[in-house]
């Protein structure tokens, strides 16, 4: 087994709910509630879950784009939430974030060349004279034309903008990339282009990915190991083939069976979950999934299941497994 590049230990991120006369904190939205996992060097780790599962907040907290509430994130052994601002800034180029919305993730008043090149300049990673060349290089690497360098973001389509966002990260030669739903705003035909770009880049640059998505099929295609989140907790982690062949958690099973398959001949037995996803401000006691779980027992209502090894490299948090 390869060494871990990123280790997340008991990470928590709570957002306060304020009220009362002096705006005291009267509760918390537990966006990320005690999450632990490791991302190994060179792998693509997928984080899937529905809205409110905290997958996106997990990604942001790992890169310290927001502050944690508790726990730690070790990147190459360094606790990212403990280092100074200067040290963090020095580490930034090697770990990059790719955003979901290709429209709001680019500054509308900055030319593509500047958007991609400015970080190189700001970090002093390249001479001014070579920046333009480097930008053009990375543009073609990401499937754009060198002449796009002088254009503004609004002159591009969603897919092309996403390429610009990727180029902006790649130019810094990162080792680790967190991609937050990078294809979910795109059309199918464009989605495939971007997914392919992600695989190509990983191959060429030996990148490690944390790929966050609600779309199981995308994650299956791109990732080698997958974690499933529900209401701020990880309920299952397993290598891809293992997870899709032998999903252990009832939620994972339901999720898998809910994805429509583009084959009208296929008639599947489908697990349709009852009810809604509860609010992370007020999650159910015990196992958070028990309100919708078709197999829930009394124990599930009381006791929180811990994530434990069910098989070699297959972890699950369920009393029934």
């Amino acid at each position: 087994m390869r060494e871990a590049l990123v280790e997340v230990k008991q990470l928590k991120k709570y957002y306060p709910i304020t009220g009362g006369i002096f705006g005291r904190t009267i509760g918390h939205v537990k966006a990320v509630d005690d999450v632990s996992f490791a991302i190994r060097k060179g792998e693509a780790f997928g984080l899937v879950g529905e809205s409110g599962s905290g997958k996106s907040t997990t990604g942001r907290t790992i890169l310290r784009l927001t502050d944690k509430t508790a726990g730690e994130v070790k990147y190459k052994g360094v606790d990212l939430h403990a280092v100074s601002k200067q040290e963090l800034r020095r580490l930034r180029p090697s770990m990059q974030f790719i955003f979901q919305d290709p429209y709001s993730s680019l500054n509308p008043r900055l030319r593509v060349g500047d958007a991609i090149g400015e970080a190189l300049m700001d970090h002093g990673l390249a001479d001014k004279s070579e920046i333009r060349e480097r930008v053009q290089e990375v543009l073609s690497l990401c499937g754009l034309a060198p002449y796009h360098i002088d254009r503004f973001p609004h002159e591009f389509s969603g897919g092309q903008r996403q390429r610009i966002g990727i180029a902006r990260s790649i130019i810094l030669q990162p080792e680790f990339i967190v991609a937050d739903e990078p294809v979910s705003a795109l059309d199918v035909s464009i989605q495939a282009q971007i997914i392919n770009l992600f695989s190509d880049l990983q191959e060429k640059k030996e990148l490690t990915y944390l790929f966050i998505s609600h779309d199981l099929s995308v994650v299956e295609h791109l990732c080698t190991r997958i974690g499933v989140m529900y209401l701020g907790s990880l309920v299952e982690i397993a290598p891809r083939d293992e997870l899709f062949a032998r999903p252990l958690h009832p939620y994972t099973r339901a999720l898998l069976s809910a994805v429509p398959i583009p084959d009208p001949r296929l008639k599947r037995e489908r697990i349709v979950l009852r009810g809604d996803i509860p609010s992370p401000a007020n999650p159910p006691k015990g196992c958070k999934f028990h309100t919708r779980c078709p197999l829930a027992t009394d124990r599930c209502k009381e006791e929180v299941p811990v994530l434990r090894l069910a098989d070699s490299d297959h972890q699950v948090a369920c009393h029934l497994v």
Partner: protein
Amino acid sequence: MTNALLTIDHLQTHFFTPSGVVKAVNDISLRVREGETVCIVGESGCGKSVTAMSVLGLVAEPQGKVVGGDIRFDGVDLLQLSPLEKQQLRGNDIAMIFQEPMSSLNPVLTIGEQIMEPLWEHLLLSKKEARAKAIELISLVGIPRPEEIMNAYPHQLSGGMLQRIMIAIAISCNPRLLIADEPTTALDVTIQAQILDLLREIKETYNTAILLITHDLGVVAEMADYVVVMYAGKVIEEGPVLELFSNPRHPYTRGLLQAKPVIGQRKKRLNSIPGQVPNLIGLADSCYFHDRCESCMSVCRLKQPELKQIDDGHRVACWLYEEESGLA
């Protein structure tokens, strides 16, 4: 074979923008039979939603306008109806649900009020009758404690619940056709499964015809009887669902099917369609897909292919198949 309930012939809906005329719907024809589910599938900007809006006469004027063709519902030409007749038809014979349940309901009116409105308007029920019927409708779409829901406001419910409410409103007057414009796109997968189940149930119970608009081929495969594939304002291929999925002919349809990653069918690389959807302003006479097509021929750049029958019920607009159907 049952009769066509909705017939769209050579519909053209254009948007007049400062930068030019956008031919959002560019000469499309399709029909929906009674009790049948027809899916229009295509990517954003292909004109699928505008087609639906044209049927209900809801295209935003004055920028958007139906400029040609006709739409017949049960033999009546919808484009010739007076505003009053159109209004009486909407919500009554043809109902519609939309993509964003969160913003599709009026935030300052109670759920109950919004369900009862069409009942007052079309079925002329009294307040009391409407209330009883509304409560019945809420439980029908699978929401517990309907009395409480009646007095709730939209922001108090989740997206999935709101989409159920939208469906309750849509079926309140027993419409013969239900138009669903991306009804599950904004919802989570597990909630999507619930909503799709509900739609199927309604179709079976009431024999309602459904015109389902979606970009998701998985949803199409699950729901459709008949599929219409649109690209850049045109229908490029159509056919019964089994036929179309097992035997896609148009390079775009094939591309779409191969571009989508499918669980359990992992490939080393996804087959992507290169390039972008063309700008709909000032398109030349050519196959609109030619610059992204791997089988592009010289004729494709010069002339637009027509939608031709190639098999029983399977039609395609592509020069690759012109010879097969006996034309040069």
